[in-house]
């Protein structure tokens, strides 16, 4: 599997994400935000955490409209996989690849700590390595993770089993405790917690590595 990791000005989890993909066995290519096309043969695009464009205007808003954004949207439209983590999740909602928006945390504070999550669906390439209801621990580090969507969108996400992860204890006011959501075709995942920061036993646990191994498994030769 070939993974492309995008770097925007202000991204700061791009290297961690590249390492997480590589450790799971992916060939990783790095992409710059000014690139207008993805390298040939990319299966999955990773949009990393950070503070792209200084969070100016709205978190992820400028990154979503940068040159590489169009290439990522085309990739998704072709049925390609896209994983957005933290600021990457904000970018994907700003691009319209995922519904809803990430607003300022209800407590107005930057939240930076390990949190317990519930795997809300095992029906995706990303979450297939778990069972529904599994409890995992991943770090969060964000100021704007308060997932907000209108009632119709929330009902659709629930009805279509597109809520990927929920918080066991809601750290940011997110509606329905939502920590991550899937696209309609289940190939685009956005989540606020950082699986790429939990792929090494020496550095805060390995629960995140299940996600990368799962999605790699989806591309394993049959």
């Amino acid at each position, binding site marked *: 599997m070939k993974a492309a990791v995008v770097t925007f000005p202000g991204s700061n989890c791009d290297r961690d994400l590249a390492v997480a993909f590589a450790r799971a066995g992916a060939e990783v290519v790095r992409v710059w935000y000014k690139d207008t096309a993805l390298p040939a043969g990319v299966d999955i695009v990773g949009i990393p955490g950070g503070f792209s464009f200084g969070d100016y205007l*709205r978190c992820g*808003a400028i990154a979503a409209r940068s040159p590489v954004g169009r290439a990522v949207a085309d990739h998704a439209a072709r049925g390609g996989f896209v994983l957005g983590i933290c600021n990457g999740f904000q970018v994907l909602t700003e691009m319209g690849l995922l519904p809803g928006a990430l607003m300022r945390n*209800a407590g107005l504070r930057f939240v930076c700590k390990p949190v317990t999550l519930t795997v809300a669906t095992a029906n995706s390439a990303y979450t297939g390595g778990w069972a529904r209801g599994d409890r995992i621990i991943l770090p969060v580090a964000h100021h704007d993770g308060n997932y907000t969507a209108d009632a119709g969108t929330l009902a659709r996400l629930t009805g279509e089993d597109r809520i990927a992860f929920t918080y066991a204890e809601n750290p940011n006011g997110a509606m329905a405790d939502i920590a991550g959501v899937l696209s309609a075709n289940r190939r685009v995942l956005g989540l606020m917690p950082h699986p790429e920061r939990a792929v090494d036993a020496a550095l805060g646990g390995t629960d995140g590595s299940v996600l990368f191994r799962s999605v790699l498994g989806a591309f394993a030769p049959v």
Partner: protein
Amino acid sequence: MKARVHVMLKDGVLDPQGEAVRHALGTLGFAGVQAVRQGKVIELDLSATDRAAAEHQVRAMCETLLANTVIETFTVEIA
């Protein structure tokens, strides 16, 4: 030609920052503040000279970038 865009959260979308401001005003002794909603004002200096064309252009900017219409509304003033 100048344009001014006001971006506000939609009615019904909780505004934790506005609520914090409301609370702070109460702490400072300003009684009777029922609600505070915080938004943005964006001023644009345009080369357009036709009012209608300028408004059309700025509305497109709002839809494309300046506002996130999932959670925000906007108004455009051409001065």
